[in-house]
Structures are given as C-alpha cells and as structure tokens.
C-alpha cells in the first residue's frame, strides 16, 4: 500500500474517532503515528503538535503538520483530507436530517439539550489552555483581563490578543 494511502487511511480512522474534537484523539494519534507506523518519534510528535498550536485555525490541523512531516506537501494533503472528509460527510448528512425534521416538535428541545455539552467543552478547553499559559502573575493577569473583556464587552477580541502579545513581548 502506498504511503499516501496509508496516511489517508490512518487519519480517516482518527477522524471518525474524534468525538469532542482534536484533543480527543491525541492519544490515539500518538499511538498510530509513533507506535504502530513508526513515522516519527515521541519528541517529534510533541514538537509538531506544539508547532500546530502556534498557528491559527482548528486544532484538528495538527494532523496536517504531521502529514507534512511524514511525506511532504502530498502527505499534508492526504492527512488533511483524511481528517476532514469523513467528519464533514457526517455533518452534511446530519444537516440534511435536521432540515427534513425541521417541523418536528421534539427537534429544537433535543438540540438545545446538546448545547450545555458544547458550551461546557468550550469552557473546559479555555480552562486547560489557561493552565498551560498561566506561568506567572503576568500571564494570569492577561488571562483574567481577557476573560472579562470578552465576556463583558462587545469589542473585538483582537484587542486583547494583540495586547496580550505585546505585553508578553515586553515583560515575559
């Protein structure tokens, strides 16, 4: 089996396991890429993941960076396609299903029952990010200020992101 096909299949498998997003499949991604296929070692896996975190965009794109490392640009394309396509097809089907069921009385309340899980997991990822980013009094102050700014005002969060970056540059 060609390498690109292997990459595509490995990430397509991960894609279908990724309930809860990228962080949900991190252990399994590590197992597949490092232990099963031997495409990289431990340290490289961690570095590539950190590299992906430094860029904007959905965290799931860590897969793309891994793909590049394994097989260059074509590897990136195969990994990204494998990671995105199966989930996107399911979302497409789900979207069609909700359109067809639009009149059903139970649909809206049922959907609303999923909202606390989604919002709770956003909060949880924020807490986990804060734990990783909070390395001293200054970073905790930035976290607290940014939380209040985004929660209590309607201004663009770009202000706090830029402000945090500049403060970090000057003081960290």
């Amino acid at each position, binding site marked *: 089996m060609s390498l690109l096909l292997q990459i595509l299949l490995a990430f397509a498998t991960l*894609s*279908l*396991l*990724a*309930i*809860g997003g990228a962080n*949900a499949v991190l252990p399994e991604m590590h197992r597949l890429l490092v232990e099963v296929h031997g495409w990289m070692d431990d340290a490289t896996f961690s570095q*590539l993941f950190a590299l*992906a975190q430094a*860029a*904007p*965009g*959905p965290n*799931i*794109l860590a897969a*793309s*960076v891994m793909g*590049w490392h394994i097989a260059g640009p074509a590897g*990136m394309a195969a990994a*990204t396609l494998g990671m*995105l396509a199966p989930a*996107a097809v*399911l*979302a*497409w089907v*789900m*979207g069609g299903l*909700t359109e067809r069921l639009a009149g059903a009385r139970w649909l809206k*309340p049922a959907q*609303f*029952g*999923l*909202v*606390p899980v989604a919002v*709770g*997991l*956003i*909060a949880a*990822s*924020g807490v986990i*990010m*804060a734990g990783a*980013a*909070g*390395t001293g009094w200054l970073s905790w102050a*930035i*976290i607290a200020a*940014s*939380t209040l*700014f*985004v*929660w209590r005002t309607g201004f*663009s*969060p770009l202000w*706090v*992101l830029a402000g945090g*970056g*500049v403060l*970090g540059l000057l003081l*960290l």
Partner: protein
Amino acid sequence: MSETITPGKAALFLGYAKIGLLGFGGVAAWARRVIVEERRWLSERDYAEVLGLGQILPGPNVGNAAVMIGRRFHGLSGALLATAGLYAGPLAILAALSLFYERYGTTPGVAPFMQGVAAAAAGMVIGTALKMGEKLRPPPELLAVGLLAVAGAAVLRLPLPVVVLVLAPLGVWLSLRRAFRAAPR
C-alpha cells in the same frame, strides 16, 4: 433578538476565512463572534444548537457547524465554501511553518509574543463560554450538565468521547422532559 442576515456565497467564505485566520488556540470563540455578533447570520440560540449537533459528531464542532451552516444557506456549494474558508488560511500558514521547521528544526522565535497571545486566547475562550451561558439562560438542570462537562473534561481530564457520550443523552433527555412538561399535548 435582533434580526439575522442571510450571507451571500462570497460573504460566507470570507466570514469563515476570518474565523480560521484569527482562531488562535481553537476557533470556537471567533466562530461565535463572527457568526452571531459581527455578521448576524444566526441568533445566539440557533448557532448554539448547530454547534451542539456538531459536538456529538466526530471532528471539530466548529468545522461540523461550518458544513451545516453552509448547507443551510447555499447547499453543497455553501458547505464547501464555508469549509474551504475555515481551513485554507490556517493550512497555508501551517505549510509555511512546516517548511521552516523542516529547514531549521525549530519554530520561528516569537516565543514571548506567542505566550502573551496564548494567555489572552485562553481568557477569550473562557469569556466566550461565559457569554454564551449568560445569553442562552439554560434552566438549572442544563446548567448542571454544562458544569459537569467542564469538570469532566478540565478537572478530571476524562476522555472527551466519554464526556460527550454520557452527557449528550442526559442533556437531551432533560431538555425534552422540560419542553414536554411545560407544553403537554
């Protein structure tokens, strides 16, 4: 609730491009910001419901929501445009970073700046969750489900599929129970 605006195809792509490019530390906060506050494609509640569906499917919930929102507005081309917008910019940046890493074995030296951005991004994500919780005003039992999700994922560090597969049915059941007790037919 203020009125919503149906985006054209170009607007859909550009809106999602903004979400992808600004989404440091994940795109959840920017997705809500752009879709609900800035461009008003969906109401707070509509967006949260699409996101909830995206959460129980595998894959990133914002990416799943992009497919469903794109489909709702412009069918298959809408789904493709929203998805392309969300991923194209970040992928280009990641390709550049990969190239740099391949050549020099390290990441570019922007560490202190990025540390500050990461701290602000963490606050942005927490602030977004607080804002959504406040505006959606869930009944107490659903608020409890949300807090359980935070505790399970952030404190106990349970695997996310476990958190979703346990709490999603619970949330749906509680929400349906309330809806049909309030308006029995």
